[in-house]
């Protein structure tokens, strides 16, 4: 056959036709020329005569070019769908590429759905983690010039970050030159009455300087005046936006109104803006001096006071730190009894909030990257399989003159379309998934209120989607663009291609390896959490109900009134059917509060600070050990007879007993407690892991002292009123008793509300919130990875079986048994899985070390975990290979051979 194409092309050369149009005309005219040539030849013309005649008719007198010029030149050059656009502008025809991409993807909805789902999982997980990283770590705090805000703690031999005694704070404030001002605050619970339903609310005592330091102006009214924060000042109050909205329906005339907090009448002076979040739960703000507690006048006492300072412009945090240290040294010289070895720790306010969670979030950000890589490998494999089916299409394009780069661009456009589609789905998935996880593990994240989808997150998702699309699209695109047109057209649809197969195998091995890493991480976290839940906290959390109680304003007038109210509440709730015993305590283990008291042996005067120790100090009513099921080691528990009329007594835990009285019986010995005075030890109980199931063993203050509520001196009685906890041991599900208990606590006057109702088991579980969050997120990632890897292996093996139908047919024809064929296919698949497992285990050994700080009771390279991961993944790989292998045995040799 003669090649007419070249001649015709030569004729068309001057016309500058769009490549696709030119290709069409060439094809049509060549067909015509061929027909004409055959006609002339069969009419008896010689080969050369016929050829000359055809050429003459076709191209004589430039007629063709002239004729076409009139028709075709008027056309605007048509953008080439097939990848042969004009050179120069790289963006030319991108719209065409997009339209074409859409059409192609719509034509194979199955492929498109699977690819988008896989990518949406990957991109969604990344978006979710980024939204957390963004909200928690990256976004500045919502105050003006947040970098100037520093948190200042006191350091003590026991604590690297301790709360600050008020008197120290006043000295710091007066003597420093680094800060434009300091502010101080402490959270507390308030009994809110006098404006509708009484309620126990959480609030904050703040210095008048705090809001100016933070730089936040009230939405309504004004901030506190310095004279409102002086000893003896009448109570003024500012409301949080939420409280204003919830209790006062955003009444804009709220300023000047009065209600009662802890029975004291307070006047509203302002409302804070909605965006203000010193602490999410805070509903009201009250000047610190209104608290009027004797503890404010004791240099040795720091009742949860937190200090924030704003640096003067131009002063660095380092300089401020140095100045604070020297101020503390001066105070230590001036007040050796209380301040020896006390210093100051100065850290940025943002670090203070997020530094503990930062390593966890960065770890998760790394892990989630693996999920995306797995998803990419999966989709790249799908695209590779598809590119084989589309080989003919690319070959035709290449034959028609499409440039390689142009075909690559078309394919990348398709993959970016896929990934952007997946990005949109992923965004929804992220939003939904993140709120589920945060709801599943409340309290696990600081600043969790700021986690959400904002512009940065959208931008991140867009960039990740596009980069992802290009990443997973590159290999298949180049593979397709490199196809040799002649080979492909000849081969028809039966593709081979060793290179493709190799790439696919590598992708699958990588997927398996990454899945191993994620599964190992999740496995280790699950083990840690499981082991922690098995740790004996020193008490029995099962069937214990806890709640915060506020006393009626009427009983708070006198210490004896308060004591009576305690007794009445306890006797009423014990009568609720299902309640076995009830107690009131000043602290709950594993909660977020603690209270330490300085103590020393004997009844002498307080020794120098270095011989004074600190113990966890819990004030309890007699039945507390019964409710918590504390084991009694020696002596006795408190009884009703331990009251103001009898000598002061205390119980200690076995840790303190070992420290202070090694080899002796502590019962009958004497201790002195600061403020309280000398006490006699009447009992020794088991140690309670107050600081945390994992961290208690390593904490500096482990000694524990219990003191009877009814022996608390009058002047401290009112302090214990707020934030006291009622604990009940119940016969059945504790939460089912809440409404009956609520009614009994409320009393005849119905003005003693309860709040923060939790079971002890919930408190234990919340104390593990951060770990459970990490575990849950890693489990989700690992499950996704497992699913994607299984789909990946299955896809590759299915394709391998299809590709080998012919070979398997021959084997079957030659007498291979079903088992032999199954084994053959399994061997190929399991070889890939084994390679992936091998590399994955090696990588897991290296990478799980990053988890070390989050693990409990299990080492990063834990053989049982790694073994379990290997067995699980191996098993899933086996199933994923077995299904295609079974199908291979169904190959009919005759059909397989005929398909050749």
């Amino acid at each position, binding site marked *: 056959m003669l090649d007419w194409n070249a001649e015709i092309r030569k004729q068309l050369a001057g016309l500058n036709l769009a490549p696709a149009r030119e290709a069409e005309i060439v094809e049509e005219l060549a*067909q015509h020329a061929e027909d004409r040539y055959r006609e002339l030849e069969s009419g008896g013309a010689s080969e050369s005569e016929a050829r000359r005649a055809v050429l003459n*008719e076709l191209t004589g007198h430039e007629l063709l070019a002239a004729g*076409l010029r009139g*028709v075709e030149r008027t*056309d605007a050059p048509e953008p080439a769908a097939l990848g042969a656009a004009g050179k120069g502008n790289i963006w030319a025809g991108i719209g065409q590429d997009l339209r074409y991409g859409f059409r192609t993807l719509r034509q194979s909805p199955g492929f498109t759905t699977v690819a988008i789902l896989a990518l949406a999982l990957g991109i969604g997980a990344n978006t979710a983690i980024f939204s957390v990283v963004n909200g928690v770590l990256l976004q500045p705090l919502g105050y003006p010039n947040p970098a100037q805000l520093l948190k200042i703690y006191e350091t003590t031999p026991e604590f690297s970050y301790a709360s600050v005694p008020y008197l120290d704070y006043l000295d710091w404030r007066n003597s420093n030159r680094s800060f434009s001002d300091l502010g101080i605050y402490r959270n507390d619970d308030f009994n809110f009455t006098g404006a509708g339903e009484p309620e126990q609310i959480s609030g904050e005592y703040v210095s008048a300087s705090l809001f100016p330091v933070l730089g936040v102006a009230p939405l309504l009214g004004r901030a506190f005046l310095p004279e409102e924060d002086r000893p003896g000042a009448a109570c003024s109050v500012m409301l949080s936006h939420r409280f204003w909205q919830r209790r006062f329906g955003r009444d804009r005339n709220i300023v000047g109104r009065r209600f009662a907090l802890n029975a004291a009448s307070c006047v509203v002076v302002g409302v804070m803006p909605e965006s203000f979040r010193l602490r999410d739960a805070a509903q009201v703000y009250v000047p610190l001096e209104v608290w009027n507690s004797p503890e404010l006048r004791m240099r040795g006492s720091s009742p949860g006071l937190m200090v924030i300072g704003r640096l003067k412009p131009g002063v660095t945090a380092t300089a401020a730190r140095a100045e604070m240290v020297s101020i503390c040294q001066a105070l230590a010289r001036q007040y050796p009894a209380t301040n020896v070895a006390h210093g100051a720790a100065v850290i940025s306010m943002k670090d203070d909030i997020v530094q503990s969670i930062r390593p966890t979030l960065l770890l998760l950000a790394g892990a989630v990257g693996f999920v995306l890589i797995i998803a990419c490998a999966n989709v790249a494999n799908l695209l590779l399989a598809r590119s084989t089916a589309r080989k003919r299409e690319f070959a035709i394009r290449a034959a028609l003159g499409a440039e390689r780069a142009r075909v690559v661009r078309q394919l990348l456009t398709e993959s970016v379309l896929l990934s952007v589609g997946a990005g949109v789905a992923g965004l929804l998935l992220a939003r939904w998934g993140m709120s589920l996880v945060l709801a599943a593990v409340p309290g696990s994240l600081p600043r969790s209120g700021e986690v959400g989808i904002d512009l940065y997150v959208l931008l991140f998702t867009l960039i990740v989607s596009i980069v992802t699309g290009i990443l997973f699209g590159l290999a298949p695109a180049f593979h397709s663009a490199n196809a040799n047109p002649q080979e492909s057209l000849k081969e028809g649809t039966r593709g081979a291609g060793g290179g493709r197969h190799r790439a696919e195998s590598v992708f699958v091995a990588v997927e398996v390896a990454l899945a191993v890493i994620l599964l190992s991480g999740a496995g280790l976290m699950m083990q840690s959490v499981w082991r922690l839940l098995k740790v004996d906290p020193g008490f029995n959390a099962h069937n214990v109900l806890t709640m915060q109680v506020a006393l009626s304003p009427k009983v708070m007038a006198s210490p004896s009134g308060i004591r009576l109210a305690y007794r009445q509440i306890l006797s009423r709730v014990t009568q609720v059917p299902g309640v076995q015993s009830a107690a009131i305590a000043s602290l709950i283990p594993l909660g977020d509060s603690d209270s330490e008291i300085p103590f020393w042996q004997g009844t002498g005067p307080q020794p120098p600070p270095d011989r004074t120790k600190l113990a966890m100090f819990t004030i309890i009513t007699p039945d507390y050990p019964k409710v918590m099921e504390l084991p009694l080691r020696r002596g006795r528990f408190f009884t009703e007879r331990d009251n103001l009329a009898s000598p002061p007594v205390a119980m200690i835990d076995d840790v303190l007993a070992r420290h202070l009285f090694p080899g002796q019986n502590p019962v009958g010995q004497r201790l002195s407690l600061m403020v309280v005075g000398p006490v006699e030890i009447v009992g020794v109980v088991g140690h309670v892991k107050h600081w945390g199931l994992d961290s208690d063993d390593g904490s500096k203050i482990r000694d524990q002292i219990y003191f009877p509520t009814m022996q608390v001196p009058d002047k401290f009685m009112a302090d214990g009123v707020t934030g006291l906890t009622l604990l009940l041991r119940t016969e059945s599900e504790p939460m089912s008793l809440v409404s009956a208990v609520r009614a009994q606590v409320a009393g005849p006057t119905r003005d003693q509300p309860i709040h923060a109702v939790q079971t002890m088991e919930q408190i234990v579980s919340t104390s593990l919130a951060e770990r459970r969050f990490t575990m849950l997120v890693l489990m989700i990632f690992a499950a996704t990875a497992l699913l994607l890897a299984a789909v990946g292996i299955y896809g590759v093996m299915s394709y391998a079986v299809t590709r080998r139908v012919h070979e398997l047919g021959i084997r079957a024809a030659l007498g291979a048994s079903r088992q032999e064929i199954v084994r053959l296919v399994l061997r190929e698949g399991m070889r890939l899985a084994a390679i992936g497992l091998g590399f994955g285990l090696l990588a897991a050994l290296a990478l799980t070390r990053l988890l070390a700080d989050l693990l409990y009771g299990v080492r990063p390279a834990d053989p049982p975990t790694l073994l379990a991961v290997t067995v699980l993944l191996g098993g899933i790989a086996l199933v994923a290979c077995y299904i295609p292998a079974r199908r291979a045995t169904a190959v009919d040799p005759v059909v397989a051979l005929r398909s050749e």
Partner: protein
Amino acid sequence: MEEQAIDREWKKGSAELLLLSLLEAVPRHGYEIGKLIEQRSQGALTFHAASLYPLLYRLEKRGLIQGRWVEKSGQRRRRYYQLTAKGRKVLAAQKQGWERFVEAISRVTRVENA
């Protein structure tokens, strides 16, 4: 030379009509159209590819005909042209015009001959 010039003039006026009427009943490809014109005119009219295809493309562009690639087994694919609805209307109008033209000519020449 003169004869060829006349031929070309004639063709120019009538080519559209010829092509459209050949496509009136069935879709045909370019080579077939050229062949039919030659056969039916008993060699008096010939359209070579160089003039036939530009004309087809022009008609297609004007929306009178539409080309479509058709693949038949064992053959290379060919482009078949068929009349569009618009083409059908134009053909009817041209046929009528042509008939009036021929009628007019023959009336004039008949008078001279008579």
